[in-house]
């Protein structure tokens, strides 16, 4: 399951979706908005996406992960729009029979999302704003 949503991420629904009778391990990674980046206080984050491509790139990553690990269920949920401190920006959930696969696949998915999925994050500070990672 891959989604890009404007509403808050519902962890309980995601967890219910991930459970199956064969699953012995579920690894759930949550990316949360922190209150500072290199010591500079962050007020909020604004996420923008090239929607159709963001979804298709996340699906590609999920498909690559399924080729590498015996994944029973997965959930990839990314927020867009304005997020306050403490809100979840992304949830990656992977259910497998054994735990090493769940950890490895979950980590692969979030690491790869950060490299290839066309989603952009602007940090809004109390004294300015900046698109993350845009400048050399």
């Amino acid at each position, binding site marked *: 399951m891959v989604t890009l949503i404007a509403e808050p991420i519902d962890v309980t629904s995601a967890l219910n979706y991930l459970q199956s009778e064969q699953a012995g391990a579920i690894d759930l990674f949550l*990316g949360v908005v922190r209150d500072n980046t290199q010591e500079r206080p962050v007020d909020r984050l604004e*996420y*923008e*996406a*090239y929607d*159709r*491509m*963001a979804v*298709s790139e996340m699906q590609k990553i999920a498909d690559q992960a399924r080729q590498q690990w015996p994944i029973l269920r997965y959930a990839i949920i*990314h927020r867009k729009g304005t997020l306050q401190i403490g809100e979840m*920006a*992304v949830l990656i959930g992977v259910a497998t029979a054994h735990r090493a696969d769940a950890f490895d696949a979950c980590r692969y998915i*979030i690491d790869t*999302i*950060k*490299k*290839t*999925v*066309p*989603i*952009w*994050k*602007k940090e809004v500070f109390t004294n300015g704003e900046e*698109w*993350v*990672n*845009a*400048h*050399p």
Partner: protein
Amino acid sequence: MDSSISVLLFGITRDLTGQSAVSVSLHKNASVADLLAQLHQQFPALMNIRSLLIAVNGEYAETNQVLSPTDEIALIPPVSGG
């Protein structure tokens, strides 16, 4: 014969140009590299961005890919999701 092609902009490139899409004039059979060169000429501020990729119809494109006026083309600045 030149044709005009529309390019979707996101994130910092949208902020720099003040537009969510720009129109670029390209010769027939122009490639992704030609488009990038033209964009840099039209918007010199793009030079300050760490990397720029082009997506064609929702897929990352190689620099030698030839563009068609019916393609959905997007300029992709460094991503920062997650």
